[in-house]
């Protein structure tokens, strides 16, 4: 009876100036399991929660290497995400064929955003139902971008997407100011802590998360985009748990968490 009249295709405006189909696509990002990304001056880290679709199934990969210098983590429709990561791989390999140089991350993110934008302006298309954290390295250092189905994209110091990502965002908002000068190990630890915030009742272990890193070493050579091995992740998780034993740390972080959750949502959540 009072059905929404303005949401039957992507190109129809509502009188309030909204595109409902695009907004619904943005919702799809929040359904997927969480991903976080953070970067320092020289390194970028991506992490994702591995959630199996059912007790009997395996989980779907959510972190993809795009090129030696770039990778993505995605939340939402993983099938759409794979299409987009293939597109990104194509762009990178074409660029390195022509110029024998890696495609700058800002251009990679922009090409992706342009592709997503087209789907919001054609009646016979559907927006991608996936949000991507694009991380990588170029001449100007490490970068992290968030690309969403609406065709918007933003650069971040640290960000989280997917289900219960607000908890991770709160954690990151409290700490991101120091990230510029973080070591790779510190970045990974914070990525794991942020991921941990998004888990509900589950315990963080190397079997339910994926972490990847890319960066530049001190001597100027590239440290290629790579998934970090399960053994190393478990080692870091264990060391973090030991640190948490300290009671002072625990109580202060709980207080701050309450304060943090009152903060407004990040702009693209609208």
């Amino acid at each position, binding site marked *: 009876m009072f059905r929404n009249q303005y949401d039957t295709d992507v190109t129809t405006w509502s009188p309030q100036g909204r595109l409902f189909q695009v907004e619904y696509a943005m919702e799809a990002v929040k359904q997927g399991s969480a991903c976080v990304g953070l970067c320092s001056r020289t390194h970028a880290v991506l992490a994702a929660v591995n959630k199996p679709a059912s007790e009997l199934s395996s989980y779907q990969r959510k972190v993809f290497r795009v090129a030696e210098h770039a990778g993505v983590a995605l939340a939402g429709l993983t099938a759409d995400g794979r299409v987009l990561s293939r597109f990104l791989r194509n762009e990178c390999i074409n660029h390195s064929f022509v110029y024998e*140089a890696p495609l*700058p991350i800002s251009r990679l993110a922009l090409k992706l955003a342009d592709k997503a934008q087209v789907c919001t302006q054609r009646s016979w298309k559907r927006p991608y139902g996936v949000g991507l954290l694009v991380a990588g390295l170029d001449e*100007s250092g490490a970068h992290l971008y968030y690309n969403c189905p609406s065709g918007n994209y933003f650069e971040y110091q640290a960000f989280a997407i997917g289900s219960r990502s607000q908890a991770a965002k709160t954690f990151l908002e409290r700490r991101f100011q120091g990230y510029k000068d973080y070591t790779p190990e510190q970045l990974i630890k914070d990525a794991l802590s942020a991921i941990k915030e998004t888990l509900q009742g589950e315990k963080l272990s190397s079997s339910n998360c994926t972490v990847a890193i890319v960066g530049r070493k001190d001597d100027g050579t590239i440290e290629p985009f790579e998934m970090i091995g399960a053994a190393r992740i478990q080692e870091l998780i264990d060391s973090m748990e030991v640190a948490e034993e300290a009671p002072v740390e625990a109580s202060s972080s709980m207080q701050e968490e309450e304060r943090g959750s009152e903060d407004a949502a990040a702009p693209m959540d609208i």
Partner: protein
Amino acid sequence: MDGLSKTIGGGGPSVPAGSHPAGGSQAAAGGGATQRTQYPYVTGTSVIALKYKDGVIMACDTGASYGSTLRYKSVERIKAVGKHSIIGASGEYSDFQEILRYLDELTLSDHMWDDGNSLGPKEIHSYLTRVMYNRRNKFDPLWNSLVLGGVKKGPKGDEKYLGMVNMIGTHFEENHVATGFGNHLAIPILRAEWREDMTFEEAVKLVEKCLLVLLYRDRSSINKFQIAKITTEGSTIYPPYSLKTYWGFTHFENPAQGAVGSW
């Protein structure tokens, strides 16, 4: 990819569907006969370039020959490309002008990203390599030898770059390069006298020595030269000037004397 796809993918004369890539003979049957550059018409002679302490220096004369006639006396064969590179060309002058159009389009679209990234000499050289090789594979080569020099800040500080591409797509990087006749007459001099830490003045002296040898021995060179340099400060193309010559050497008086040939 933007620039290249336009250059070698889309526009320009293409091989008609179904015709043999090598053929001119059966092209009439398809009705879409294509004309390719079979011979160069207006050509420039040698370009020489070398790395020195602060960057790269490049030089050539300003002549262009129509066949073997010295037809044009002041054409610029060295141009700036973007912020970090200079290009020098020998061979067909109109093909060089076309290449300059490609590069203008490339650097313009690169600039229009407006994101602080820019193509360096290495990237431009690689791009040119793809264009040259692609055109030769269409049996429609751009009849040039191109020299590309530049300086750009990299992760390990300022990096000097000097490379060459020819009409069939062969490409390499070197500390000093020379095209055409210069490859025969200037390279031995450069090999003997080039040093990594040369000052600009020393580099100019060495370049002038090579140019003078070429002027004496290369019939298509003229005595009007242009020198260009590229450093971190950017590129400078100096106005043309002449070198002092001395034709009174005894070997010049009867040049055929020492050359005993079978004919």
